[in-house]
């Protein structure tokens, strides 16, 4: 079994960094450089040239790819077989790699219907902070051998290791899809989203912004047509969902600070202050609110998603003492010298 030359190359760079006490920023296409704290680093370790699909047989509903593979390539290859990766992570600026999508764990509009990035990850290859190449999980849907390190890596922002390859679940593209829009207030839309989630109608995305609510239905021809007639509204092009996902709406372009609020769908927290409501109300976006929303949140958490570089506000919601302690100890186990993305997620890790 030939060891991948890219893996050897990274292992050498990691060993060099360990010897010289250098800190590394793990980076794919750099499309999410803005996300998380800047952190401290001495050099980049890049995955962008590590591209290609390692294994994909459509009837398995599983794809295995190298971490530097562009999301656009993954989408195109899947589309040829009438399949898709339903968590649909953003491709900010049209870029983004699969490794970055896993490391950031940010999911797109389909999250409520199809699950988050972490729900669809089945296995990962990683290099830990000792430079060891490791594999966890696999290419099968059900696997409880060993702790679920694959899901632990998802959303860990590269602080636990460098992702070399990843296996994830894919699904057949729905036979039909339709998006409907109607003019209504945020409160009306919120109530509609909540009601809809209690019905079995095949709603695969929901959003409200600037006085309009958008609903997407996906499924069989008959099921989607049935839902469209039941719910009503005007049919619009599906392109609105990638604009929402990639934050291309005009209001986002103009905003200096963007807060992401994650709460239960029915929560009243930060509801009326939201510029964009998604995920049946569970994901809310505040643009230039002029205050720190964490104090008034209750259940859930808030992320300072975009901010000027000199804004010292902590980007991710602070952790409880016990959970913070577990984070520190896990970081130490995976990356004892703290060489990977120090400070990107939290100051202490």
């Amino acid at each position, binding site marked *: 079994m030939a060891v991948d030359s890219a893996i050897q190359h990274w292992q050498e760079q990691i060993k060099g960094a360990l010897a010289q006490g250098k800190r590394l920023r793990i980076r794919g296409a750099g499309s999410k450089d803005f996300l998380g704290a800047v952190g401290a680093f001495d050099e980049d370790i890049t995955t962008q040239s590590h591209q290609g699909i390692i294994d994909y047989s459509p009837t398995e509903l599983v794809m295995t790819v190298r971490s530097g593979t562009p999301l656009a390539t993954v989408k195109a290859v899947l589309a040829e077989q009438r399949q898709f990766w339903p968590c649909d992570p953003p491709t900010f600026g049209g870029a983004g790699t699969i490794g970055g999508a896993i490391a950031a764990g940010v999911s797109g509009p389909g999250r409520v219907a199809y699950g*988050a990035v972490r729900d669809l990850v089945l296995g990962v290859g990683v290099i830990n902070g000792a430079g060891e190449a490791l594999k966890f999980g696999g290419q099968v849907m059900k696997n409880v*051998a060993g*702790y679920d390190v694959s899901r632990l890596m998802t*959303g860990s922002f590269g602080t636990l290791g460098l992702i070399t390859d990843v296996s994830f679940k894919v699904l057949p593209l729905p036979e039909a899809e339709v998006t409907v829009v109607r003019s209504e207030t945020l409160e009306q839309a919120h109530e509609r989203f909540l009601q809809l989630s209690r019905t079995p109608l095949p709603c695969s995305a929901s959003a409200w912004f600037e006085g309009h609510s958008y609903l997407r239905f996906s499924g069989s021809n008959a099921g989607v047509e*049935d839902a469209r007639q039941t719910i009503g509204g005007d049919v619009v092009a599906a392109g609105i969902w990638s604009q929402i996902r990639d934050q291309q709406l005009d209001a986002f372009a103009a905003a200096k600070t963007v807060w992401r609020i994650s709460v239960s769908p029915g929560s009243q927290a930060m509801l009326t202050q939201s510029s964009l409501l998604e995920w049946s109300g569970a994901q809310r976006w505040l643009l230039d609110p002029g205050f720190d929303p964490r104090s008034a949140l209750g259940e859930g958490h808030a992320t300072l998603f975009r901010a000027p570089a000199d804004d010292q506000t902590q980007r991710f919601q602070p952790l409880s003492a016990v959970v913070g302690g577990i984070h520190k100890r896990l970081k*130490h186990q995976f990356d004892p010298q703290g060489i990977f993305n120090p400070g990107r997620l939290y100051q202490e890790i």
Partner: protein
Amino acid sequence: MRLQAICEGHSVSDQARMKVYESDGLTAKKQLPWLVLLPATIEQVQLIMQLCHAHQVPVVARGAGTGLSGGAMPHHEGVLLILARFNRILEVDQVNLLARVEPGVTNLAISDHVRPLGLFYAPDPSSQIACTIGGNVAENSGGVHCLKYGLTVHNVRKLVMISPEGERYELGSEAFDSAGYDLLALMHGSEGMLGIVVEVTVKLLPVPVEVAVLLAAFTDVGQAADAVGQIIDRGLIPAGLEMMDKLAVQAAEAFVHADYPLDAAAILICELDGSSVEIEQQQALLTQVLQTAGAVQVRCAKDAEERRKLWLGRKAAFPAVGRLAPDYYCMDGTIPRRELARVLRSIADFSQTHGLAVANVFHAGDGNLHPLILYDANQPGQLERAEAFGADILRLCIACGGTITGEHGVGVEKINEMCVQFTTEELNVFHGVKAAFDEQGGLNPGKAVPTLQRCAEFGAMHVHRGQEKFPELERF
């Protein structure tokens, strides 16, 4: 004694009465605990954990004890912490579609409780009438509907945990995600090694408008296996897709009279759900795919009663097969679906070699196999042969790119095979994860992850991922 006083009489310490707790569902592995405690409040669990931590007493947590890998086998010097008295459904949130429950609530009790509201909890392991939700988290249980609805990890929003030191903390939240590492996911399938679950918030779903259940009979096991891939290839994701071979079908039919075709080499049970129009369309497509794949009979259940019977036969397959022989040994490997036909042929060959019959029941849609090896523990050598047969199946699963356990866990049963599936460095990472949650190692010691010493003893000659150490050396 202080530990017993905490539980106000809900404890067992005499050997005869502790006998009922000496094993979980894997009865071949038995061990009496030092003490059995049945607390009923979070404060009691905290006090027990504090005392056990201070005195370095091991703690093994369990729910109903239905696990199949010995994950809840007691420790001879330890406390067996039974959470079955935590059996209340605390709250149902009809706006956010959540149920907050105690860990000793049974899986089925959740769906039964919310069904009048038009809701259900999706994961449904076959032991659902008895197994607890806390145990489901520990094993990341699946069931017959996880092809469409996912595993326990996909259906739990939040856990309240007690650390080995007795501290209370929360993972996840009522929101769809939380800040920091995904420790909520990590806790699923961790087999009671990382913390004690004392409260679970699960996601509920609206009950589908219509359900259709189809039975397809095949005269060739390989054709039935290949039909599974063809169904998915046509873009169909059934809510459930199960397969049973001839021996399993005959045993189930004799047990529950589900009207299964007794002459079939294998049957597929396939469930569709959705709106009436969707079902109609999908059922026509599915029937066509099954017939093209070589099904000699495709039957759709006419009514709820017939649907119930078709599923009852599948869910009762384990006890039904249990009537064929004094003992059976249930395996749990998962493989890529494309390997189904080949693996089934190899299992039939192993059956010849080891001289033991095997019935195959499995979650075909997920590639999760449950071969049931029939043996008689009272016949000298049969248990050893059954275990050797099982080990052959697990190694085959790894060789096919699969895993040694899909949903039953490693426990004590498959601990040696962990040395085959993972490298020393990978096992060290697992030990590191354990240490991050349980520095002293008092939670469920000796389970789930083998020590490197154990692997050295077991695997002096094992071949890892087709790669031998020192391949240049001549062997034998």
